[in-house]
């Protein structure tokens, strides 16, 4: 019975992969060069620095069809549970499939707020609620947001959602409420503690490691070296928004 082939992943094997991934995380390739950078937490009380630009490099060739580990990890981390109808549900990250009709090539990728250097959502916000932090993260200050949804119209990536219902049981680190627009924060509450975004961790745990997170401004970071070495794509590069999220293998 236990030898029956199954579509379900073997939980013990998955656990072992997780341990292996965790073990790899700190491996040094050469002195001073690490395979995965362990982000350093800023000392408490210090503001985000302009010398940092947080970014992600998503390798679409490693993003598996049918896997939604990043989406469910995001929903869990930010407590994005909702009872409204599906098309109104807040969605900070989604999986999409690109299908090239002529060649029948299909490629999967996660799509979320691209944390643009020139964010159109910030340009159109009438109250200053939509803003770009010093370290490049594009966020919404819900204290100022009036829920006009101009930013949702302006975003070419359809990355923003509106909260239609009263909420309870938020993650204490991620306050959310009715009447505000919201989007991916790159798990800013984790970054500020020196952590990595939940989707990045979940993808690595699944063994795909399709998302590389780090400081684009630090020439020694894994992401900066990778962006230097391989051809990467900005989605809608024609808009010249300089997104902090880049893709390879599209």
């Amino acid at each position, binding site marked *: 019975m236990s030898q029956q082939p199954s579509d379900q992943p073997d939980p013990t094997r998955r656990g072992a992969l997780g341990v292996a991934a965790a073990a790899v995380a700190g491996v040094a390739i050469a002195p001073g060069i690490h395979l995965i950078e362990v982000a350093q937490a*800023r000392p*408490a*009380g*210090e*503001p*985000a620095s302009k010398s940092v630009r947080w970014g992600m490099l998503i390798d679409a060739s490693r993003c598996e069809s049918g896997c939604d580990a990043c989406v469910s990890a995001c*929903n*869990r*981390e*930010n*407590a994005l*549970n*909702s*009872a409204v109808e599906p098309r109104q549900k807040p969605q900070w990250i989604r999986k999409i499939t690109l299908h090239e009709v002529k060649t029948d090539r299909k490629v999967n990728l996660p799509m979320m707020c691209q944390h643009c250097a020139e964010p159109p959502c910030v340009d159109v916000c009438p109250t200053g609620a939509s*803003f770009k*932090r*010093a*370290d490049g993260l594009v*966020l919404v*200050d*819900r*204290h100022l947001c009036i829920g006009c949804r101009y930013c949702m119209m302006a975003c070419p990536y359809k990355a923003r959602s509106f909260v239609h219902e*009263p*909420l*309870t*049981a*938020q*993650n*204490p*680190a*991620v*306050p*959310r*409420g*009715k009447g*505000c627009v919201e989007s991916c924060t790159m798990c*800013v*509450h984790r970054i*500020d*503690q020196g952590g990595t975004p939940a989707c990045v961790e979940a993808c690595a745990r699944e063994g795909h490691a399709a998302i590389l997170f780090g400081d684009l401004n630090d020439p020694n970071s894994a992401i900066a070296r990778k962006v230097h070495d391989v051809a990467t794509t900005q989605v809608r590069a024609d808009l010249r928004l300089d997104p902090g999220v880049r893709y390879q293998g599209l």
Partner: protein
Amino acid sequence: MIGMTSAGKRAGRLAVLMIGLGLVAAVLPASAGSGRTPQPQVDAARGGACVLPPEQMRRQHMDLLKHQRKVTVHEGVRGAPASLVGCIDCHASRSNDSVLGSSQNFCQGCHSYAAVKLDCFECHNPRTGQTAASAAASAASAGAKP
């Protein structure tokens, strides 16, 4: 004519003084005062030393929080003493782990007494001891209800 005006002024000053005293009594609920004034019975939970003396906290907590929210949201400064999470950690009632729920709970009790709208908790979680996982679990069970 002159006498009437000065009498009127005196009466006006007295009225202003009385209104002023009334306001002070209303916003200083814990000032040990006359037995005739009803006082809110709030559970201060852990109590102890706050970030400022209680008299200052009663008048300034909203300013401290408003300042802190700007610094935290826009600049990313975390772990400051005057944070809303800090308030909740100390003042959540031991009976329901929350600063809301009844007129005994710390935030709700005083705000309903002073008739000041409290909208922090339309977005912030009023409970202590919550993690991302436990919040997600309780949100899921709340969402499952029709």
